[in-house]
């Protein structure tokens, strides 16, 4: 292969290897150091081209969305009376959902990762079950579980609350749709923290709670941020369970559906753009932050 032995590649390698002023890096690191990997050989070229094709294919719907939108349509559908209410509802319910997940599911994920629970497979199977059920089915089952004529529903009634067609119902539906993704991701994040480090922190004089705050949490944080952003995406896009138990107040996915039914596609599509624009920053920030944390750790 003449590609592999091209003079440019040879020169590049030599420069990198002989540079005495450059910072010392672990072996095998060199290629990533200077920036994106160069197209060194035919196989690299093919894999980059393949990745590009897949990326464009995945983006296909988004590209289609952009080509089918006109500025006028966006303006007219978003400036109508109360047009932005679904946006507020979606963001608020999404943030509350994330809060609930953080508080309730983080300890569960930690205990799963550290094997603190008896019969771990049973616990994990439970989490998987709620992930495998179609959201629509979850919604139907939630009606049986927290609907107005159930014990839980009656209890909520005593508190002047209801878990059907309320903000609470929306949050419940979003929590059920996103929790398993967060739990499994967070479990992996905690499992990647070496127990030896926690042990060492303990021997240096930290109580378990302090060890968790000073070692476990910072080390798991990038992984937790990633799982949280996946959970966020699930919550923002939640539709199946939502349409059953929380038809009101409408978040963006439901708004798209009702607008589609009432006035047709052209007025519904702008909401999809809004959903993208609103939902994207948080996961993007999580990605950037994790990458930064990783870079900082590598020094």
């Amino acid at each position, binding site marked *: 292969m003449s590609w592999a032995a091209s003079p440019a590649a040879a020169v590049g390698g030599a420069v990198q290897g002989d540079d005495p002023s450059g*910072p*010392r890096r*672990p072996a095998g690191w060199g290629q990533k150091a200077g920036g994106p990997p160069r197209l060194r050989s035919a196989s690299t070229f093919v894999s980059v081209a393949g990745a590009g094709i897949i990326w464009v294919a995945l983006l296909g719907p988004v590209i289609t969305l952009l080509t089918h939108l006109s500025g006028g349509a966006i303006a007219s559908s978003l400036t109508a009376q109360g047009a932005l209410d679904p946006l507020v509802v979606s963001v608020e319910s999404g943030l509350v959902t994330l809060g609930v997940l953080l508080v309730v599911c983080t300890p569960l994920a930690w205990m799963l990762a550290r094997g603190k629970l008896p019969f771990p497979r049973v616990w994990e199977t439970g989490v998987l079950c709620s992930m495998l059920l179609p959201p629509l089915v979850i919604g139907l089952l939630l009606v049986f579980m927290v609907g107005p004529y159930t014990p839980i529903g009656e209890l909520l009634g005593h508190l002047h609350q209801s878990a059907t067609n309320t903000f609470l119902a929306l949050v419940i539906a979003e929590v059920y749709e996103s929790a398993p993704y967060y739990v499994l991701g967070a479990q992996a994040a905690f499992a990647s923290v070496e127990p*030896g*480090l926690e*042990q*060492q*922190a*303990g*021997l*240096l*004089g*930290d*109580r*378990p709670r*302090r060890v968790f705050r*000073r*070692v476990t949490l*910072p*080390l798991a944080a990038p992984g937790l941020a990633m799982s949280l952003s996946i959970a966020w995406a699930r919550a923002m896009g939640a539709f199946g369970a939502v349409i059953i138990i929380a038809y009101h107040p409408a978040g963006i996915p439901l708004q798209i559906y009702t607008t589609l039914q009432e006035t047709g596609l052209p007025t519904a599509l702008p909401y999809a753009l809004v959903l993208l624009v609103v939902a994207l920053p948080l996961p993007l920030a999580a990605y950037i932050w994790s990458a930064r*944390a990783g870079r*900082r*750790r*590598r*020094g």
Partner: protein
Amino acid sequence: MLDADVEVDRRDFTVRVALQVAPGERLALFGPSGAGKTTYLEAIAGLVLPRRGRIELGGRVLTSTDPPGQAMPPWQRRVGLLRQNPGLFPHLSVRDNLCYAPSASPSGEELSSLASVLGIETLLAAMPARLSGGQAHRVALGRLLLARCDTLLLDEPYTGLDASLRRTLTDLVGTLVMDRSIPAILVTHELGDAQAFADRLAVLDRGELLQVGAPNEVVLRPASRRVAELVGYLGFVPAGKTVAGVHPERVIAGAFGDRGLVLTGMVTARRPAGAGWEADLAIGAAAITCRLPDTPPASGGELIVTALDPPRFTADGSAIGNAPAQEGAGRPQQVRRLSKRAGRRATPTRTGHNNRSVRPSRQSRRA
């Protein structure tokens, strides 16, 4: 003073070790892999709870199974444990790693003087991922010292580093332990490391303490055939009613009857070893290995060697009263039972002495 007498059950045997380490003293716990060395350290650190035992450190009771039982949690023990993985926190800089312990609040001056002793003064701002293995171990050691641990437990920390670096770091630990006058235990399966570090050597095999003594004394006067095997005696030659242990490095060519046991054997193999040669000799039914500076005869040739002052054992493997190896090194030796239970349970199968530890009296060791 660290005084730890513990029994920990393992899958196929029980680790029974009772040792006392004085402030500033360096003890090496030597034994093959899986002998229970690490278990003993973990019991002291509070990571493993012994079935029976009592651990005291500087007057504080860390663990006691005598009623009422007591088990201080690891974070209150002030026990420094250094393992093969230095365990630096990857999200913290070297400086933050050094000052991690809640009890560590060094002044800038203290921090920089410790860093220069450890040779890491230029690395304080670096992240652990950028450090070499040796540097990471220096930082880990500094972190334990700044945490003001009352004892230092080293669990084969420098395995995997090259020999000269290992020796440098071992020396560094030794000096720092003496300076701070804290007890230290090094666990190792490398005899050379143990000898380089320790004032006292304890030999552990399958959970039983076989011998405790000055490093040289243990090597030259092993208490049993098993100890001899562990410290490197490769050949055992019948000599009258006894068996003489032959260490490859304690053999010289030629017949010197006044210096030891003269052996005549046939060379079965020879190979270069370091700057000299290593030869396998068949002596009757026994086989020995010896290191010689001169080239031995080729295979089949005859060679006369002298095994210098070899330790002698009875047929069942226990040592026969040797004169002390060196004057003053080991006056009358006090044989101490680990515990009544250990004494009762010990089975005299492999070695007759495996429930006894031999230690020189405090005065003779200090002398």
